[in-house]
C-alpha cells in the first residue's frame, strides 16, 4: 500500500474545531452563527470527500504524525474503516444543520451560541476520533467528545436535564477510565501510525492479561456503544434537544463506540488472535443480550424519544454482532445496518422533534390521528420504520441479508435466534407507533398553529430517501464496505 503524508486529515478535524470555538463569540448575531455552523459541516464533508477520492485513486493511507515527545505522539491517519465512519458522520452532520437551526430557534431560543459551538465541536471531534492514527489520539478525542456533548445534554438547564447529564458523565467517564488503562497497557499503540498494522499486540503477555485488556477495551468503548449492562445512559439523555439526540446520540457518539470496538478487534488484537482467544462468543452474547434488552425496553416506552433511544440501543448492537461473528459477510451486513441506522434513525428522531414542535405531543399514546394532520412527517416516519425493520427495497433489507448469512457461515444458531427475535420485536415497537399515527381514532382535537417549513422537512425526507436509494442501488455502498472488510479479511 502506498503511503503519503498529508495535512488533510488533521485539517478536517482542526478547521471545524476552530470554527466551533469561533461560534461561541458570535453572541447575538444569529445569522453569522448559522452561517459558521453550516460552513463547518460543509468543510468537513468536503475534506472527507477529498480523502475518499485520494483513497480511491491511489489506495494509500494518509497520515500526519505530530510527535509531542518521547512516547507521546498524536497522529492522524485515514483508512477505509475510519473513512467509512467519518463519511456517515459528516454527511448527516450537513443534513442536520438546517433542521437544528430551525428547531433551536423555535424550541430553545436562549444561549444558542453555546449550543451550536458545542454542537460543532462535538461533531468535529467525532469525526476526529475516526481519523485517529493511534490509540492515544483516539482516546484523547474520545474523551473530549464526552466532555463536549455534556453541555448539549444539559442544554435545557432544567433539574431533570442536569440529572441526566450527571448520569451520562458517570457512565461514560467510568468507561474512559477502563479505556485509559487499556491504552496505557498497550503503549505500542501510542506510537506513530499504529493503526497501519494489524494485531500489534503480542500474545506473549499471557492469556490472563490479554483477557483483562480485551475486557477493558470492550467496556471502555462498549459503554459509549451502549452495550447491555451499560446501556441505560442512552435513553436518559434523550431529554436533550432533538438535534443532539438525533445526530449525536443516534449517530456520532454511539458510532464512535462501535468504531472503537471494531478498531480493537480488527487492529489491536486482530481477527486471528480474537479467534484463538475464543472471546468472539462473549461478544456475540453481549450484543445479543443488548439487542433483546433494547427491544423489550423499547416496547414498554410511552415517550416517543425514549422509545427511539432504546431502539438505538437495540440497533447499534447489530454491527457489533456482525463483527463478533468474525466472518466477512456478517461484518459487511453489520456495517450496512450501521449506515441504515444512521440515516433512518436520524430521520425518525427528527420526525419526533417535528411532531413535538408542531403539536407539543411527545407520548406515543397521544399521537393518534396525527397521520392525517402531518402527512409528510408521518409518512417519512412510516417509511423509516419499515426501513429499520428490513423491508425489501430498503437498505435495512440489504444489511440484514448479509448479516443473517453470518450465523449460518460460522455455525452459531443462537445468534440466528437473536436476529430473528430482534427483527420481530423491532417490527412490534416501531409499527405500533405507525399504527397509532395513522389508524387509531383520535377523540381529542388539536390545532396546528405553527407551519413547518422546508428547512425542517428537507433533512427528514433526505434521510428516508437515502435509505431507499441505497436499498434499491446498494452497489456503491457495498463497494465501500467491501473495501473496509477486505483490509482485515484479505479478500
Amino acid at each position: 500500500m502506498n503511503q503519503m503524508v498529508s495535512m488533510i486529515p488533521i485539517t478536517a478535524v482542526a478547521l471545524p474545531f476552530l470554527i466551533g470555538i469561533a461560534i461561541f463569540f458570535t453572541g447575538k448575531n444569529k445569522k453569522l452563527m448559522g452561517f459558521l455552523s453550516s460552513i463547518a459541516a460543509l468543510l468537513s464533508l468536503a475534506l472527507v470527500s477529498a480523502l475518499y477520492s485520494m483513497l480511491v485513486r491511489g489506495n494509500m493511507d494518509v497520515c500526519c504524525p505530530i510527535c509531542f515527545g518521547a512516547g507521546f505522539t498524536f497522529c492522524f491517519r485515514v483508512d477505509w474503516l475510519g473513512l467509512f465512519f467519518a463519511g456517515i458522520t459528516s454527511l448527516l452532520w450537513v443534513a442536520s444543520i438546517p433542521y437544528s437551526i430551525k428547531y433551536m430557534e423555535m424550541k430553545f431560543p436562549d444561549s444558542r451560541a453555546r449550543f451550536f459551538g458545542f454542537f460543532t465541536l462535538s461533531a468535529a471531534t467525532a469525526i476526529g476520533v475516526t481519523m485517529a492514527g493511534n490509540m492515544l489520539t483516539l482516546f484523547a478525542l474520545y474523551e473530549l467528545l464526552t466532555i463536549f456533548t455534556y453541555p448539549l445534554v444539559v442544554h435545557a438547564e432544567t433539574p431533570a436535564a442536569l440529572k441526566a447529564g450527571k448520569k451520562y458523565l458517570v457512565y461514560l467517564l467510568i468507561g474512559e477510565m477502563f479505556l485509559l488503562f487499556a491504552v496505557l497497557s498497550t503503549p505500542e499503540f501510542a506510537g506513530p501510525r499504529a493503526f497501519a498494522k494489524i494485531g500489534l499486540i503480542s500474545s506473549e503477555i499471557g492469556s490472563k492479561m490479554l483477557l483483562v485488556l480485551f475486557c477493558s477495551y470492550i467496556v471502555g468503548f462498549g459503554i459509549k456503544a451502549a452495550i447491555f449492562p451499560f446501556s441505560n445512559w442512552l435513553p436518559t439523555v434523550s431529554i436533550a434537544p432533538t438535534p443532539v439526540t438525533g445526530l449525536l446520540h443516534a449517530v456520532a457518539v454511539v458510532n464512535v463506540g462501535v468504531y472503537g470496538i471494531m478498531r480493537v478487534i480488527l487492529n489491536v488484537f486482530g481477527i486471528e488472535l480474537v479467534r484463538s482467544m475464543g472471546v468472539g462468543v462473549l461478544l456475540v452474547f453481549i450484543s445479543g443480550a443488548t439487542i433483546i434488552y433494547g427491544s423489550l425496553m423499547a416496547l414498554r416506552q410511552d415517550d416517543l424519544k425514549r422509545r427511539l433511544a432504546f431502539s438505538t440501543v437495540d440497533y447499534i448492537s447489530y454491527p457489533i454482532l456482525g463483527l463478533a461473528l468474525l466472518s466477512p459477510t456478517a461484518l459487511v451486513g453489520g456495517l450496512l445496518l450501521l449506515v441504515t441506522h444512521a440515516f433512518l434513525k436520524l430521520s425518525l428522531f427528527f420526525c419526533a422533534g417535528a411532531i413535538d414542535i408542531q403539536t407539543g405531543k411527545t407520548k406515543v399514546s397521544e399521537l393518534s390521528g396525527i397521520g392525517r394532520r402531518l402527512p409528510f412527517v408521518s409518512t417519512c416516519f412510516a417509511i423509516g420504520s419499515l426501513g429499520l425493520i428490513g423491508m425489501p427495497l430498503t437498505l435495512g433489507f440489504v444489511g440484514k441479508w448479509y448479516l443473517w448469512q453470518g450465523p449460518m457461515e460460522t455455525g452459531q444458531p443462537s445468534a440466528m435466534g437473536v436476529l430473528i427475535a430482534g427483527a420481530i420485536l423491532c417490527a412490534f415497537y416501531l409499527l405500533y407507533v405507525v399504527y397509532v399515527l395513522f389508524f387509531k381514532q383520535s377523540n381529542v382535537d388539536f390545532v396546528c398553529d405553527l407551519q413547518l417549513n422546508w428547512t425542517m422537512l428537507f433533512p427528514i425526507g433526505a434521510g428516508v430517501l437515502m435509505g431507499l436509494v441505497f436499498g434499491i442501488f446498494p452497489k456503491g455502498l457495498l463497494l465501500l464496505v467491501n473495501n473496509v472488510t477486505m483490509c482485515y479479511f484479505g479478500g
Partner: protein
Amino acid sequence: MSFVLHLPVLMVAVPIAVAVLISVLLTFKRNIAFVLSVLTMIFCLISSLFLMVKVITEGSFVYYVSDWPPPWGIEIFIDRLSVYMLLLIAIVGLISIIYSELYIKKVLDHQKIPFYYMLVLFLIGSIVGFVISGDIFNMFIFFEILSLSSYSLVAISGDREALRAGFRYLVMGIVSSLFILLGLGFIYSVTGTLNFTQIALRVKELSDLTVIQTGALLLIVAFIIEAAIFPLHVWLPKAHGKAPAPVSALLSGLVIGIGVFGMIKVVYYILPGVYPVSFVVFFRGLISVGIILGAIFALFENDLKILLAQSSISQIGFAAIGVFFFSYSGLMGSMLQLLNHAFAKSALFLGAGAVIYKTGFRNLDEMKGIGKRMPITMGFFAIGLASIASIPMTCGFVSKYYLCLAAIKQGLWGSVGAILLGGFLSLLYCLRIISCIFFEKPDSKVEVKEAPLKMLLPLGVLAFLTIFFGVFPRAAFVLIEPGVKEILGFLR
C-alpha cells in the same frame, strides 16, 4: 555570559532585599510597594530565562558563594530541574503579584498592604533559595523563612478564621521544620557534612545505613507535611481556603509543589538509593489514599476555595507518587504535574478570587449560573478545571498519562488504580463545579459584571499556559527530559 552564574544568588537576594526595603519605606510611601514587587518579579523571570538558556546549552553547574568551596562555603547547585522550578516560581509569582493589586486593596486594611508585598517577596526569595541550595542546612534555613512568611500571609487579614487557620499551619509547620532539623542531625552525625555531593560520597563508604535511613525518613516526613500528603494534610484546606486569593494561588500552586521538590531532592540528590522497599511501598500507599480521599472531600465541599484546597491534596498526591516510582516516566509525570498544578490551580484560585472580588460569594450554591454573567472570567476558570480534571489537550492530561504509564510499566496495580480512580473523581468534582456555575438557574437577581482587566489578564495568561503545555508538552520537555535523566543517573 559569566554574569549568569551570579543570577541564582541574586534571585534570592533581590526579593529579600526589596522586602526589607519595603518594610523600611512603608511608613511614608505605600503605593511604591506594588511597583517594586512587580519589578523584582520581572527581574526574577528574566534571570530564570537566562539560566534556562545557560543550562540548556551547557548543562548543570555549581556555584560557590563568594568563592568559598565546600565544606566551608555555601554551595549552590543549579541543574535543569531547579531552573524549571525557578521558571514556575517566577511566572506564578509575577502573575499573582499583578493580580494582587486590586484584590488586596479590597480585602485588606490600608496599612497592611505594604506588609503583604513584603511577605510575598520573602516567600518568593525563600522558595528560590530552597530550590537552589546545595546543602541541607541552607535548605532548612530557607524552609523556615518560607514557612514563617506563609503563616503570616494566611493570617494577614486578621479575622478569626484566618488567624485560626494560620495558627494550625504554624503548628504543623514547626513540627515539619523540627523533623528537618532532626533529620539533618542524624545525617550529619554519620557523614560529618551537610553538602549534597559530599553526603552522597560518604554514604557510599558506610556499611550500616540505619542512621542514614532514619535521617532520610525524617526529612521525607517533613516534606510530606509541607506538601500536605495524607495523613498530614489536615492543615491545608483551611489555610489555603481562608487566605486571600492570590496568596492561596501562591501557596497551592508553588509552596506545596516545593514540598514535593524537597522530596525529590532528598530521594534523588542527597540520599539516592538507600531506601528499603518497604519504605517506598508504604509511602506510595499513603499517597494513593491521599489522592482518592482528597478528591472525595472535594466532591462534597461547598465552599469553592476550600474545595479547591481539597483538590490540591489530591493533585499534589499525583506529583508525589511519581517520585516513588524511581523511573523515567514517573518522574516526568511528577514534574509535569508540578507544572500543571502551578498553572491550573493558581488560575482556579485567582478565578475564585475574582468571583469573591465582584460578588463576595464563596459558596457554590450562591454561584449558580454565574458563568453567564462573567463568561470570560469563568471561561478561564473552566480551562483551569479542565486541566485539573486531566482532559486531553491540557497539561493535566499529559502528566497523568505519564504517571499511569510508569505505574503500569512497573506493574504497580495499586497505584494504577489510585491514579485512574483519582483522575475519575477529579473529573467528577470539576464537572460538578462546571454544571453549577454554567448550567444551573441562579437564585438571586444580583447584577454581576466581568472582573476588571487587571485581574482577567493574569488569569488569561495562566489559562493560556495550561492549554499551551497541553498541546505542546514538548516545550517543557526541553528542560525536564535531560534533567530527569540526569537525576536518575544519581541512583546508580
